């Protein structure tokens, strides 16, 4: 249970593998997705499906800009979002509804500077404190020696408890199958000493794989660089080990507020409050019991 977060490592990260019973284990690894250099090629989506034999998600025209797979789900473990935004890049002070001048001569007025197209490859966050794992009654979900969270398809019974537990809406039941599926951070490839398929396929290194502590050093450097270039909106998402999920195993560099990317601004593992809830419930139960006993005692009188 994740009532207590794993203790911090000397470098400031957290080591969930240790408290999951892995006495000897490799460094915690994960993804750093730098959306500032994502070109939206979707090679990650395809490489993921090829390697993990994930079925296609249906050939449906969605018209969400260039996105036609919609969202993460049982059949899409990497998902590239396309956000067409009427906003001048890099300025924190201009809101989403910055006015766009709609009349000719548009070109003269430099309309293109009031527009940007954000792309971001989303994935399972492999939370330090993972609610899906906490609520799984069968042990199908487990914490690997790499600190990642993986579903074992041969154990999952399709109860679906994990689906509402995930604060990011990542884990999902496959239609016609019933079991839940999500990114394994290519557990099989990690075992063989290879990086995950998506990271290997990414042509611009937008998806970076490695020991989480190293990735965070790199990510902080990149944010500083972007701030210096005037992209003051750039920020890391999920890199804070003290956030509501104890930090993410797959964290991001975003160019705007998390909501713009359909990410919760302050994710909290729902099981975080369980101890308090159980405490409150226990108190209530005790009080009820006391009251009941008292009532009987009083009745006997």
């Amino acid at each position: 249970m994740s009532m207590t977060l794993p203790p911090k490592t000397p470098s400031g990260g957290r080591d969930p593998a240790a408290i999951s019973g892995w006495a000897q284990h490799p460094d915690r690894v994960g993804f750093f997705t730098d959306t500032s250099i994502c070109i939206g090629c979707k090679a990650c989506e395809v490489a993921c499906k090829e390697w993990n034999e994930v079925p296609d998600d249906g050939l449906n025209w969605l018209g969400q800009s260039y996105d036609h797979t919609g969202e993460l789900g049982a059949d899409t473990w990497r998902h590239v979002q396309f956000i067409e935004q009427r906003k001048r890049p890099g300025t924190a002070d201009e809101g989403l509804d910055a006015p766009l001048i709609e009349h000719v001569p548009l070109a003269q007025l430099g309309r293109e500077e009031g527009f940007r197209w954000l792309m971001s490859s989303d994935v399972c966050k492999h939370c330090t404190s993972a609610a899906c794992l906490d609520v799984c009654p069968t042990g199908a979900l487990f914490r690997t020696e790499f600190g990642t969270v993986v579903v074992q398809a041969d154990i999952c019974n399709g109860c679906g408890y994990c689906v509402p537990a995930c604060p990011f809406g990542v884990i999902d039941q496959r239609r016609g199958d019933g079991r839940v599926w999500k990114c394994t951070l290519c557990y099989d490839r990690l075992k063989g000493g290879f990086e995950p398929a998506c990271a290997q396929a990414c042509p611009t290194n937008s998806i970076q794989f490695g020991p989480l502590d190293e990735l965070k050093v790199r990510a902080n450097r990149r944010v500083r660089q972007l701030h210096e270039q005037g992209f003051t909106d750039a920020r890391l998402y999920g890199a804070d080990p003290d956030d509501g999920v104890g930090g993410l195993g797959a964290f991001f560099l975003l160019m705007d507020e998390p909501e713009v990317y359909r990410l919760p601004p302050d994710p909290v593992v729902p099981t975080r409050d369980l101890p308090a809830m159980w405490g409150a419930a226990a108190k209530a139960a005790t009080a009820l019991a006391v009251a009941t006993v008292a009532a009987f005692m009083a009745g006997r009188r």
Partner: protein
Amino acid sequence: MGTSFGRGGATTFQQDLQHSDCIVIMGSNMAECHPVGFQWVMEAKLRGATIIHVDPRFSRTSAVSDMYVPIRAGSDIAFLGGIVNYILQNGREFREYVERYTNAATIVSAEFEDTEDLDGLFSGFDPERGVYDVTTWQYEGAGDTGAAAGQRVRHFETDAALGERHGSHGALPGGRPRHRDPTLQDPQCTFQLLKKHFTRYTPEMVEETCGVPREQFLRVAELLCDNSGPEKTAAFCYAVGWTQHTVGVQYIRTAAIIQQLLGNIGRPGGGILALRGHASIQGSTDIPTLYELLPGYLPMPHPGDEDLATYIDNNSSPTGYWGNMDKYATSFLKAWWGDKATPENDFCYDYLPRINGDHSNFRSVLDMLEHKVKGYFVIGENPAVGSTNSKLQRLGLANLDWLVVRDFVEIESAAFWYDSPEIETGELRTEEIPTEVFFMPAAAHTEKDGSFTNTQRLLQWHHTAVEPPGDARSDLWFAFHLGRIIREKLAGSTDERDRPILDLNWNYPTQGAIEEPDAHMVLREVSGYDADNKAVSGFQDLKADGSTACGCWIYSGAFAGEVNQTARRKPHQDQNWVAPEWAWAWPANRRLLYNRASAKPDGSPWSERRRYVWWDDAREEWTGYDVPDFLTKKRPDYKPPDGAQREDAIAGDEPFIMQADGVSWLYAPSGLRDGPMPAHYEPQETPFRNPLYAQQHNPVRQTYRHRYNPYHPSNGQVGSEVFPYVFTTYRVTEHHTAGGMSRTLPYLSELQPEMFCEVSPELAAERGLVHNDWATIITARTAIEARVMVTDRVTPLLVQGRTLHQVGLPYHWGTKGLTTGDSANDLIPLALDPNVHIQESKAATCDIRPGRRPRGPALLALVEQYRRRAGLDGAESRRAAAKEHDR
């Protein structure tokens, strides 16, 4: 590129982009179409480079660029010419580079007249034949070498049937020019001619022509100049967004002029990167699938080239590397005809066909309609979807005796006879189509040995990973065994016309159960071998006496030392950043061409920051990170003695060794059919007048008047208002060209599941188009339907005081596969660049309206209605047909 610098390929390599200080991507959607190579643009950006994207449409490339400039499709020469003018008016050129390494100082014939003098025409235009006589374009004194040379040029360059005679390299029949003005002051020197020619390409003119605000244009020009010079370099990347125009070659020439003026050729982080669309499209021009070229850019003989000596004399140049053409041509003939090729029979030169007319693909398709073409091989192509005016293509396919299609799956080009738009409209009836279609399953690249030659001239070997399934076979297998069977059938023939086939050197060893020819032996022959059957080490080993054989001289050395050099895979971390031991690049494994220019005339680097190849005084040779593109022992102060020939005629400070005069060409005295300097002409179909000249279009563009290839009225002509919008076609990352390799795969099809069109919110409002709904796009060729994507990524432009709306159309869809849809190529007319016969598929006009298109014969009625409104009725079409080839 060949005309400007000497070789028809990218001057640099993609990895080198990381060193660039400024990258201008224009005529290319590099992030989407070359995502792997684009990592080097991103690397440059991380290092602080400025990335500029100029394009009609905001694409994924624009999204990650520092600056995006929307431009009217088809107006790039005006934009680039504006930059040339900015450089020259403000003295921003890299003076020493321009003086020493370009032909800036060379004096041009006093008879030359510019477009400024003739309102859009150069001197020598023949309005009757629609071609130029290029005699007056020559350097002053070129005629001194004798009338024969001048005569020869006139004969070759004005014959409309000829393709790229000298187009691939800077040959000068007269050899080195005699008249120069090193001070660049003479009004007839190319520098001054250039200045005069572009003087009206002002920021205001750019704005009026391209729809680019002058401030924005000036920002691009300044950034480019600020990031060029001894310490800094800037690069251009382009793709088919430049080539697919009636003035495509001149687009690239304009960029070549800019890069020469800024000193960005032959230097790290500089150059012009031609991005090729397929894994081996560079390979298919090096060892060409073109009718007018032989391997290694040797021209195909013409009727005037009576014998080998005449052919060589007509096409080589006494000075520069093309002085060695006799060695390359003889070795090529020896590779094809082996022992049968002897000095006595002119090395079987007469076995080569002679070109006596236009045999380009589009001409052949028109000939199919007249049943002049009986049989057709379609290999690695899907013309029913991917070729311009694909309706015309399909009608041609339906009028053959036989057709062979080799592909992975049954593509539209193999299925047109029962499943195509023309079957739907009733224009074709299956039972009336004479064509017998043979569909042959092809092996994928993972199922065969072979090489790709990629965009940066890099030959990379791939090995068979699995045997091809079932009856699938490699193209090599198909070609070899087809040749073998034909030769067996012809065996014993005494007919002279069978000799070229029977005498072929056709002895490739085969291996395995499927008798796959050994691809290594093919590469070895391409690379070359000597009289003792030993692999040659490079083209310097080739001889003109018949003692060496070499299938393609520029590939010579790919099998040096009996080692397949293209299969080398030394990791980049184990060598310098140029990675010369990863695969093999032509020529001679050089990665950055003309790299002698990375050093000053005295041989020392222009700057430490941009050091690349330099003269090592102690070792008395050129050295550096790459193979020097120069004779390694030729001193920087070498001066050619009088009467020097071939490479000996190139001085030690002349980096462009393929050019007869050793320098790059700001002004091209030969090699181009539509002008020695670029001029802006409007596309074949345009809603605007040419604001620069009275001459509206490229006067020597190639057009085909045909009832299935009608052109819309241009600006000002009656009916032009019927097609008020400009459309441009393109690819998206998720699909592969005509879709044969992507619309058949679920993982790719789900990512872009339908044909769509991209329109601005303003156009959507004007025409009532609804996002996610349908639209019909109409031209005089036909009409297609597409899902509507209303997006801010498309911007209306203000051009000549009017609002211009542009429509974006990806061209991947057809009737077969998991995702199907109408083909954008059905809309595009055939109008070609006169130099390379590339079609104008990046700018044409159309109308657009909401809703799906009519089905069946009703579609024809809709198009007919538009034709009538535009004045293109039946009578007009018939008149037009009679005037085929009209310009």
